[in-house]
C-alpha cells in the first residue's frame, strides 16, 4: 500500500484539518466532530441541506458545500457511514428554523445512521426530512433487497436541491425537487483497478491486467460482473445502454456526468464522453449539460461512471444556478 498519509487511523481527521485550512473563508469544522459546514451556516430562512457518508469519495461531500449547494457534510471514516451523533451535530448547526433535508445515498449503513439522527433531531424539535438517492442501475431495485445504490447521481441532487433551497423554497419544495431528480437520474460504473482503504492496507479486490469490473460501486466493493477489458467506446456503450434501458429517456433532454473514480486520467474520461455523446445523438436525446471530472470518487480506484439525468426547464435552470461549492462552481 502506497499512501501519502501520516497514520491510517488519523487520515480522515488530518484530511479535514487540511481541507478547512485550505478554504477557511468558506468552510468550518464543528469542533470535536467530523462535520464540515458552510462558514455562514445557519443561513437565515433557508432550508439546511446535509449530506455525507464515508470519506474516500472526495471531493464528495465537503466539496459541495457552498452558496447554492450543501450546508453541511458529515464525514465518516473511509467508506464507513458516519454515526448518528455526528449527523445530529450537522443538522443542529445548519437549521435556521426552516428545516433540514438529509440527502442520503442508499446504503444500509447510511440510511440507518442518518435516520437515527433524524429521529433524534425531531425529538429536539427540529423539522427534518430526507431523500434517498439510488441511481446505480448496476444493482436491482426490488423490495426484497436493499435496492439500488446511490453513486455519482447524488451530486446532481446536491446541486439542484441546493439551488432550490438557496432560492428560499420550503422544506417540502426542496424535498420534492430532490425526489424529482432522484426519479430521473441513473448511473452505471466500471472499474479497471481497485483501491486500498488506508486502515485495511491491502486492495479491496484484484483485477488481472486485462480485466475490468462492470457495475462497480464507490466503496471498493466488487461490481456485478468481471470481464475482459474492452475499448473506451465499448465501455461507454455498455454503461450507457444499461442506463438507457432502465428509464425512458426517449425524446427528453438530459444532463450527462462522466465521473472519474480516482486514478483514471481526465483524458480517458473525455474519450468516454465522446462515445456517450454519440450514442445519445443516435437516440435523439438532446444534451443540456455535460460534466466531466472527478465528482464522486473511490480513493484511487481506476474507472468511471456514466450518469444521465432527465431535465426539463425547471431542472436546467436549477443546474445553471449560481454555486460557490469548491467542486461545483457555477
Amino acid at each position, binding site marked *: 500500500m502506497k499512501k501519502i498519509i501520516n497514520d491510517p487511523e488519523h487520515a480522515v481527521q488530518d484530511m479535514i484539518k487540511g481541507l478547512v485550512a485550505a478554504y477557511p473563508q468558506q468552510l468550518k469544522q464543528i469542533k470535536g466532530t467530523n462535520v464540515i459546514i458552510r462558514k455562514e451556516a445557519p443561513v437565515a430562512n433557508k432550508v439546511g441541506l446535509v449530506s455525507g457518508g*464515508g470519506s474516500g469519495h472526495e471531493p464528495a461531500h465537503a466539496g459541495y458545500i457552498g452558496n447554492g449547494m450543501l450546508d453541511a457534510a458529515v464525514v*465518516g*471514516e*473511509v*467508506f*464507513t*457511514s*458516519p*454515526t*448518528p*451523533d*455526528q449527523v445530529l451535530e450537522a443538522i443542529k448547526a445548519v437549521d435556521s428554523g426552516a428545516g433540514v433535508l438529509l440527502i442520503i445515498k442508499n*446504503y*444500509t*449503513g447510511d440510511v*440507518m*445512521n442518518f435516520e*437515527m439522527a433524524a429521529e433524534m433531531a425531531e425529538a429536539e424539535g427540529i423539522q427534518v426530512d430526507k431523500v434517498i438517492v439510488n441511481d446505480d442501475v*448496476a*444493482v436491482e431495485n426490488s423490495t*426484497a*433487497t*436493499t435496492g439500488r*445504490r446511490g453513486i455519482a447521481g447524488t451530486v446532481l441532487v446536491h446541486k439542484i436541491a441546493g439551488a432550490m433551497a438557496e432560492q428560499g423554497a420550503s422544506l417540502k419544495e426542496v424535498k420534492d425537487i430532490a425526489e424529482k431528480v432522484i426519479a430521473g437520474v441513473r448511473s452505471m460504473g466500471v472499474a479497471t483497478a481497485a483501491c486500498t*482503504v488506508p*486502515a*485495511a492496507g*491491502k486492495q*479491496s*479486490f484484484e483485477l488481472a491486467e486485462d480485466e475490468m469490473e462492470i457495475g462497480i*460501486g464507490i*466503496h*471498493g*466493493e*466488487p461490481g*456485478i460482473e468481471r470481464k475482459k477489458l474492452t475499448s473506451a467506446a465499448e465501455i461507454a456503450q455498455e454503461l450507457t445502454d444499461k442506463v438507457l434501458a432502465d428509464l425512458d429517456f426517449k425524446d427528453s433532454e438530459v444532463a450527462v456526468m462522466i465521473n472519474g473514480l480516482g486514478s483514471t486520467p481526465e483524458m480517458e474520461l473525455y474519450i468516454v464522453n465522446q462515445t456517450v455523446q454519440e450514442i445519445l445523438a443516435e437516440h435523439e436525446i438532446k444534451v443540456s449539460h455535460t460534466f466531466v471530472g472527478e465528482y464522486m470518487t473511490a480513493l484511487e480506484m481506476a474507472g468511471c461512471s456514466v450518469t444521465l439525468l432527465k431535465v426539463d426547464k425547471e431542472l436546467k435552470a436549477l443546474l445553471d444556478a449560481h454555486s460557490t461549492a469548491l467542486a461545483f462552481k457555477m
Partner: protein
Amino acid sequence: MDHLQVNHVYQWMKITNDKIQKNKEVLTSLDQAIGDGDHGINMARGFQEVMNKLDAENYEHVADMLKDIAMTLMSKVGGAAGPLYGTAFLKMSTRLKEQDATYKNFSQAITEAVNGVKQRGKAEIGEKTMVDVWAAVADQMSKESHFSAELIVNTAKEAMESTKEMMATKGRAAYLKERSVGHMDPGSVSSFYLFEALAEVIAEEG
C-alpha cells in the same frame, strides 16, 4: 453461574475486544470479499472505544454498562454494523433495566436484541447477515434454563458457518447476489466472536 454480573460483562467485552483486534484482518478480508472491507476496522475501533469507556467508569448495574456499550458502539463504529450492534446492546440494556441478569432475563434480552436488529436493518433470518447468528443463539437460549458455554458457542459457530452458502439479500453483500455465495458474512463472524467470548466467560465461572 446463575446470573451475569458487572464483572462478567466487563470480561465479556474484554475478551470480545481481544478477539476482534486479533482477527481484524480476518474480518476485513471477509468484508473485502463481499462488502467494502471496513468491517474489521470498524469493529476494532468500536470495541477498543468500549473498553476505554468501561475502564474509565464504574458500574453498579449490568443495564447501565450495556447502555454505555450501546452508545459507544453507536457513536464509534459507523457503517451498518454500528447502528445494528448499538441497537442490540441498547435493547439488552432496556430489557435488563432494574433487573438482575438472570438466565431467563438475559436470554430474553438477547431475544429483544434480535428483534431490535431485525427491525433496524429490516432483515430476516436467512439473508446472510449478523441476524442469522443472533437469532440462532437467541432461539437456542430461549429453549434452555441455564447458561451453557458449549451450547452458545456451538450454536453461534454453526449459524456463522451457515451464512457461507447463503445468497445475500440485505446489506452491501446483496449487490453481489450469486457472487456472495461461498463467503461467510463478516457481521456473522464478528457476532460469533462476541458469543464465543460470552461462552468463555460462562465457562470460566463454571
